């Protein structure tokens, strides 16, 4: 087999500019801003719904225009499509450059950090109406101050996270 050398990664600023453009395209084409983590709520809600609970009855889905769009279900909506597509896009990119590698979990500590980190992030997004995309990357360009506040306090959180990282995970 021919030697497959990887091309060098693209510079960060290229990614930044392209993502900015994509942010705009999503708004123009769908009329709605780019967001991600609501999909994770939908997945959880979808599973709970399968257990027979009437999730659509939850307080959350009856305020702030949070209800599912007409005809959509928790597993069938454009947010689920976009998160699957992002995973696929990354997968295609690594496969093309033959960089794909299964990376197992190294330790119990890593597992806990991943789980707790994910739960913290997931929970936090419901309070701030989004994640690094929905409450920051789309919120600031929407001229809503909550995006700026989210960004500033993400720094605070990151600082605390670094302290925890150094103490327990290094």
């Amino acid at each position, binding site marked *: 087999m021919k030697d497959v050398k990887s091309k060098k990664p693209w510079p960060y600023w290229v990614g930044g500019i392209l993502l900015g453009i994509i942010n705009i395209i999503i708004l123009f084409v769908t009329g709605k801003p780019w967001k991600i983590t609501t999909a994770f*709520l939908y997945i959880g809600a979808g599973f709970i719904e399968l257990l027979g609970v009437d999730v659509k009855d939850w307080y959350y889905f009856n305020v702030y225009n949070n209800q599912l769009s007409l005809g959509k279900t928790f597993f069938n909506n454009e947010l689920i499509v976009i998160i699957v597509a992002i995973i696929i896009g990354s997968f295609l990119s690594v496969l093309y450059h033959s960089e794909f590698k299964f990376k197992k979990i190294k330790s119990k500590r890593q597992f806990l950090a991943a789980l707790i980190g*994910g739960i913290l992030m997931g929970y936090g997004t419901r309070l701030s109406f989004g994640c690094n995309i929905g409450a920051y990357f789309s919120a600031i360009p929407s001229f809503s101050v909550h995006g700026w506040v989210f960004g500033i306090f993400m720094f605070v959180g990151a600082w605390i996270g670094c302290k925890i990282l150094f103490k327990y995970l290094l």
Partner: protein
Amino acid sequence: MVTSSKIEEIKRQRQKEIRAKKNQRKYFYIAAFISLIIFGYFINNNKLYAFTWIIGIAIGIIMQRSRFCFAASFRDPIMVGTTSLFRAVLLGLMISTIGFGIYQYMFFSNVENYSIMDIPGQIYPVGIHTIIGAIMFGIGMVIAGGCATGTLIRIGEGYLMQFIVLIGFIIGATLGGKSFEFWDKLFISTSKIIYLPEYIGLIPTIIAQLIVLGIIYYLAILYDKKNNIMSGL
């Protein structure tokens, strides 16, 4: 990249020792083909999904290729004093500001009666809940090694750890959704939406925001040069 003769010598030696990479291109073609089939299905059934599918794949490719990481954009200035990712995010914000501004301008030109919830964009109340949520998210993203998009990218790269992060995300988001009433009654429902154009107009807001982002960009360059290393070591 600044290399040295010692390094080049080591490289030369190692080059002889390492085996040629296995070519994964064939798997790429299979995966790309399946993605195309899915795209074809969407085109015939739901054009919105077709668009979302393509855009999502593009995001995945772009972020993976450029090693883009929002978590690192916040973490690296604190941890190692580099702001290159942070500045890249600022570039994205500046471009988005212009595009979103245009879109909102078009909205206001075409609509007579509207409420603030109708304005296109992510516009929500700001308050203590935002602060708490942001801090939780900031802590979580550093210890989990990535934010929302970073987690998805890394799942695509084969990280089993990020799959666990995703499970955590789902659990956390669902818990958050279930307990939303508590937070809404406590903070959110009494917090204001501060939509800047409401106070100074859309065009001034766009200009002011671009200037502010530009200043932050410039400060980030200075900070990077100053080379602030975390004293935790």
